[in-house]
């Protein structure tokens, strides 16, 4: 097998998995959809966390905003606003398939625009901060936005809101969303692959390596950082829109802004796989999600203890992650992509 064949086979194989896995395991369609979503999380986190060295705990904000935006658009389009409260409580949101897909599509676009604008505005302020200040600031941001969303009446406040019910037969929602998230993850992956190969990717790496020097070389670092955050926000808002509809019910703290679960997982998955690599977040997310689905239920009540322990172990003992370890172990497999660390 020579090196030119390998990517084709790999991508072909993944495409096959993406198409046939949900069909082969109908009972796990929701989990499969979640797995693609986790990969999206890890990939988008890695734009800032891995490539740029800006570790964000607050990316979950865009996930929640996208989710609320998409669901609100559905409500606005097809339901009388006066009935809103009553409807959402009775869980009676039936739509025709065409309306459902159109509403979701429109909601995703509006959500994405909203998230990018938010990321831009917040980024101009927050991304002026360096390194660890940024990390803590986003930690605050994630919690503050979640708490705040829980007090807006329009989106159901603390009691949450319901997304429209999937219009087709009961089982088909899982299939629809596993393809939805598969397309999303493929789009995210190739957009980022392209992005990292451009000058923009180099600029991000320059910021990670030495921001002062990057600035001295004439890069508008804050602008680059803001754009990178906007890209992450863009893809996360799609993930949010999809997950809101898949889950059917949106709770401000547990579903829309789950800083303690998804928000932490995306960091962990990217580091577990190897931050700063393209495949690392993908591998990390798959490994994490599969082990989590298998073992989480046996750890009832102790999941977050395990989560905390896992973070500590990964960070302290395996800071390079799976891909970093593989690169050290079999450098020749990675061809010219080996990066010798200077120290």
């Amino acid at each position: 097998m020579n090196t030119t064949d390998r990517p084709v086979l790999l991508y072909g194989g993944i495409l096959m998995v993406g198409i046939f896995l949900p069909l082969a395991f109908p009972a796990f369609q929701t989990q499969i959809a979640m797995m693609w979503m986790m990969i999206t999380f890890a990939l988008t986190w890695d734009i800032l966390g891995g490539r740029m060295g800006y570790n964000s705990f607050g990316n979950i904000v865009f996930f929640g905003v996208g989710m609320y935006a998409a669901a609100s658009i559905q409500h606005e389009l097809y339901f009388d606003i006066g009935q809103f409260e009553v409807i959402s409580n009775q869980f009676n949101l039936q739509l025709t398939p065409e309306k459902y897909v159109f509403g979701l599509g429109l909601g995703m676009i509006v959500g994405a625009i909203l998230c990018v604008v938010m990321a831009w505005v917040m980024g101009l302020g927050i991304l002026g901060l360096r390194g660890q200040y940024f990390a803590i600031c986003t930690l605050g941001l994630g919690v503050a936005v979640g708490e705040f969303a829980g007090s807006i009446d329009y989106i159901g406040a603390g009691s949450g809101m319901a997304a429209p019910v999937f219009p087709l037969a009961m089982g088909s929602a899982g299939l629809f969303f596993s393809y939805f998230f598969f397309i999303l993850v493929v789009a995210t992956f190739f957009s980022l692959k392209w992005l990292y190969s451009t000058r923009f990717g180099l600029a991000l790496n320059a910021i990670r390596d030495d921001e002062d020097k990057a600035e001295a070389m004439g890069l508008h670092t804050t602008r680059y950082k803001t754009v990178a955050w906007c890209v992450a926000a863009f893809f996360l808002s799609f993930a949010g829109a999809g997950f809101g509809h898949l889950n059917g019910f949106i709770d401000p703290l547990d579903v829309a802004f789950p800083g303690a679960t998804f928000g932490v997982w995306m960091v962990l998955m990217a580091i577990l796989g190897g931050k700063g690599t393209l495949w690392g977040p993908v591998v990390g997310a798959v490994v994490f999600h599969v082990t989590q689905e298998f073992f989480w239920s046996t750890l009832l009540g102790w999941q977050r203890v395990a989560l905390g322990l896992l973070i500590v172990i990964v960070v302290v003992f395996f800071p390079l992650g799976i891909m970093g370890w593989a690169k050290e172990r079999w450098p020749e497999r990675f061809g010219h992509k080996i990066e010798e660390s200077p120290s």
Partner: protein
Amino acid sequence: MIGALFALAAFGMALVWGVMNVINITQGEFVVLGGYVAVLLAENGIHPFYAILVAPILLYGIGWFFYQTIIKRVVDRDLFTSLLATFGISILLQQLMNQVFGADIRRAAHGYGTWGFFDGLVTVEQVKLLAAVAAIALGGVLVLFLKKSRLGQAIRATAQNARAARIMGIDTDKVYAATYSLNAAICGAAGAMVAMIWVVEPYIGLVYTIRAFMIAIIAGLGNLSGVVVAGLGLGVAENFAGFILGAEYQIAFVFGLLVVILVGRSYLLGRKREYLK
């Protein structure tokens, strides 16, 4: 008066930050653990005021344990590694406390009354006054300790320049261990008072971490009077915000304020082409 407790936790955070260059997210969990010590004492018939003495001793041990197992390995790495490691410990402790003590809100019954002045127009809870006095006394002892004792001098020397301190024969590893454990002990004492004045619950820790962090950045590292003033100011601001906006916004207010302060400071510094370091 409440601010004095925040200031205590912030002082510990600034100490660890300045000496070890580690931002300790676990701060709040140490506070909550200290609070549980007071709760347990109160429930076993011992007056919770003794927790101000017992909690630091226990927390010193816990801090020492975490230093030896985890923090020791991340001290020399970049700031984010240690940030994430302490974040992991924080999640671990939160959930452990949830499992061990239960998710309920608990408080330490203390049995102090309230003084009223001017026919009850002004009321002072004795326990708050007592806690403020204890916090100030503790802060004073701490400052004296750092200024006068051998270990305190070693800590300050390491903060100035760890490499030079090592050359001068200071065992920096021991100094780090002592600093981290000392910080845990301070938080424990503050937590014991928190449990008497308010309540403790497993997940409230992060709020205290953020408060401590805010105070530390407003005041600057190693600026003790600044820490006290900022702590008192934050206490007052939070009370007012809770009064005006309503209690359900209190957590959102704390975290929102953090974002505003950070952005504001970086904007002010940005005009001088500088940034927060």
